[in-house]
């Protein structure tokens, strides 16, 4: 990652060179070509927009996860936190847990989409903050804290909803999941805007520089006057915020918040980030890479489903291609002069 994509992000690099220098992007391009040859309708705008909408949920969380992993941290709780925030949003939107059943959009006595959105992102950010606090103050490794969070948030979600879903939101809320602006799905737009903002923050702000520095060498960062603990806490707040945002969009899209939402998302999200070239040891990576990683996973899944490949074979193919995409990237990097 790093140098190559950063170059790309500064613009002025031709496409071929870019493809050649960043394995996953090249893989993505190849996959799109292959799937289109297999079934030309793959490249229909409607399917492309489907894919964009599909990757937007895990993609949003992956943006936050990029910050976390850049600091050499990890957040395993995001799937559960997504379910938790979604349930909170649903409770706020519907004005309670009782009316779980009405699919009708009328007659809800809730507080409207804005309150629901606010609740989701605030709860997500706060939950992230608590975890960040445990990581920095109690000195418990991120893996342990967020693994604990994974089970705690799931338990809380199930407790709130007693295992069931809370469904039926009003049209204004549903727009965030199902609406279109022109031909483009709203979730895809939200994801795109968020990705651009994250890119700007990481690349062009003081704060972004600090995140890279803390991940690159925490001790040197401390000795350079950075408030390492605050920065660490902040990245967990950010990923929590994005889990909340993703939860809101997912609930709006499904017209339902489910207690079982987001199971296993942590691995999908972390894959997207890591395939995108961000190092689990911190300090190296970019938002652009994460977007490519998320797109690679999304295109693979959609393309295989599109061709009605059996789900067993799908598992095998997806696993192998992920490994190959990264292996190819390493190989390119070892050859191409940096």
């Amino acid at each position, binding site marked *: 990652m*790093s*140098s190559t994509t*950063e170059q790309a992000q500064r613009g002025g690099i031709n496409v071929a060179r870019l493809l050649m220098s960043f394995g996953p992007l090249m893989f993505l391009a190849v996959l799109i070509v292959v799937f289109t040859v297999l079934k030309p309708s793959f490249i229909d705008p409607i399917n492309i927009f489907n894919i964009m909408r599909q990757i937007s949920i895990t993609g949003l969380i992956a943006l936050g996860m990029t910050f976390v992993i850049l600091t050499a941290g990890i957040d395993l709780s995001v799937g559960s936190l997504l379910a938790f925030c979604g349930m909170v949003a649903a409770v706020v939107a519907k004005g309670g847990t009782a009316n779980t059943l009405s699919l009708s959009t009328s007659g809800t006595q809730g507080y409207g989409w804005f309150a629901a959105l606010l609740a989701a992102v605030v709860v997500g950010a706060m939950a992230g903050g608590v975890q960040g606090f445990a990581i920095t103050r109690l000195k418990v490794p991120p893996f342990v804290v967020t693994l604990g969070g994974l089970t705690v948030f799931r338990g809380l979600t199930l407790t709130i909803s007693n295992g069931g879903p809370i469904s039926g939101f009003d049209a204004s809320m549903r727009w965030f999941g199902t609406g279109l602006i022109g031909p483009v799905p709203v979730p895809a737009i939200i994801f795109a805007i968020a990705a651009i903002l994250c890119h700007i923050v990481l690349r*062009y*702000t*003081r*704060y972004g*520089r*600090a995140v*890279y*520095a803390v991940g*690159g*060498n925490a*001790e*040197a*960062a*401390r*000795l*350079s*006057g*950075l*408030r390492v603990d605050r920065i660490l806490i902040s990245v967990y707040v950010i990923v929590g915020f994005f889990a909340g945002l993703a939860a809101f969009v997912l609930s709006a899209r499904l017209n339902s918040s489910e207690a079982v939402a987001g199971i296993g998302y942590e691995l999908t999200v972390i894959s997207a980030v890591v395939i995108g070239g961000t*190092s689990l040891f911190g*300090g*190296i990576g970019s938002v652009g890479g994460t977007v490519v990683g998320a797109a690679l996973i999304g295109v693979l899944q959609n393309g295989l489903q599109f061709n009605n490949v059996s789900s067993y074979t799908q598992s095998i193919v997806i696993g192998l291609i992920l490994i190959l995409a990264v292996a190819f990237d390493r190989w390119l990097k070892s050859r191409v*002069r*940096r």
Partner: protein
Amino acid sequence: MSGRTEGALSRHQSQNWEQPLPATEATAPAPDSALLLVEGVTKHFAGVMALSDVSLEVRPGEILGLLGENGAGKSTLLKILSGVMPPTSGRIVFDGAEFNPHNPQDAKRHGIVTIYQELSLIPTLTVAENIFIGRAPLGPLGLVSWRKMEQDSRAIIARVGLDLDPATPVSALSVAEQQLVEIARALSLQSRLIIMDEPTSALTETEVQKLMSIMDRLRRDGVAIMFVTHRLEEASAICDRMTVLRDGRLAGHLDREGGPIKLPKIIEKMVGRAASELYARPTQRDVAGDVRLSVRGLRTVRDPQAPHAIVLEGVDLDLKAGEILGVAGLVGSGRTELARAIFGADRIAAGTITLDGKPIAPTSPADAIALGIGLVPEDRKHQAIFAALGILNNFSIAALGRYSNAAGFMAERREREALASYRKTLSIRMASPEQAIEGLSGGNQQKVILARWLARDPKVLIVDEPTRGVDVGAKAEVHQILVQLAARGIAIMMISSELPEVLAVSDRIVTMRRGRITGEMPGIEATEEKLMELMALDRKQEATP
């Protein structure tokens, strides 16, 4: 041969702790049959020509100095010899046979032992385990005998004058102690050629002398040594011959002809022009500044994570604006501790610090920096460098506030301009601001770190071993920079294990021992002997602690 040895050690005779060495010249093999022949070795890294057609030879029972500026290719050559990387082309003959080591193990098997420039100990393992890595002594049942391993390693580290519990994890040791452990490990291996890449860069005079007498004994036993250092006095004192590299090419060989090889000759070969005086003695500058930083009764607490760490036992110190205060001391005297305590990096148990007359109590480096204090730490790799980041990011990290607007966006143009200007004033040799800092030579890395602090315009700048691993030319430049900074009114505290350096740039010198200040004198009056006396551990005291 014995005459030569005396010559080599004459400088150190007065403090030689070793028993007089028995003459063993009879056992030394004929000195003119080469043990190692390097012929036309070339090494390319993607685009960079690190070595070009280098040839040299090493004979049994001799110490060959390998010298050159930062980036001249010394380490690269040594890594090729020890199997870390293959040469692009060229031929190596060891002991009369073609030699192509594929990995460090190959080289080890042939009896080539290497002390790498970047310490290669495993921080999480104990001293004993590091010494016996891959060859732990086995007890009955073929299981590792920890007791024997620890006993044996106690003896091995004692050879280099270390007295440590071998069960201590290496991560708890200071850089100097780690360096000594690494040397001890190398010496404990059966070897015919020992490669030492800057083994002394973290050591003080006493340990250096210890090492030199050991090297001398090895030489008498017929072991060949390749020795890299940027401290030319050392090289001149101990080396039988020298090979000098310049920009990856062979610049020439130097031979001891009767007496030690003279420094000007070495420098001329290294930099390609005649060198003027290496260390200019300080002219008595007019340090009329007020007291800027004042420390009274400073004590630190023992950290349970590093029980061997020195604690400060009540330090009083004044630092004036515009002066360079040299801090001398042996390894473990607490100099680094003092710097870290003032900088808010370690917890203070008692004592007061005042800055410009106002009491301050920094509890974190961020506090200290906000107050106008800067620290260039001793361990560049672990405490200063962001290896994954480019030079620009490394440069501006302590001054992000200066190079960003109120909204938090980086003002990249201003940042680049600032770097460009420091690049000029400090003559930093680099390709571009985006270049990874890892790709710079040690001296240039150090200059980037200095620039990092200059960008903050500190009132007080503490530099801990500012020229570790930096070549003569760059070293002089760093000294020049320090003097210029002081002239601008910055109060500078310079910790250094290299006495010539302390003597060269300090306006005033204090010595430390065991967490206390033991003496003070103006730089102009100081001599190595005077300082050594104040620094050295009193043996009687040590015997009855």
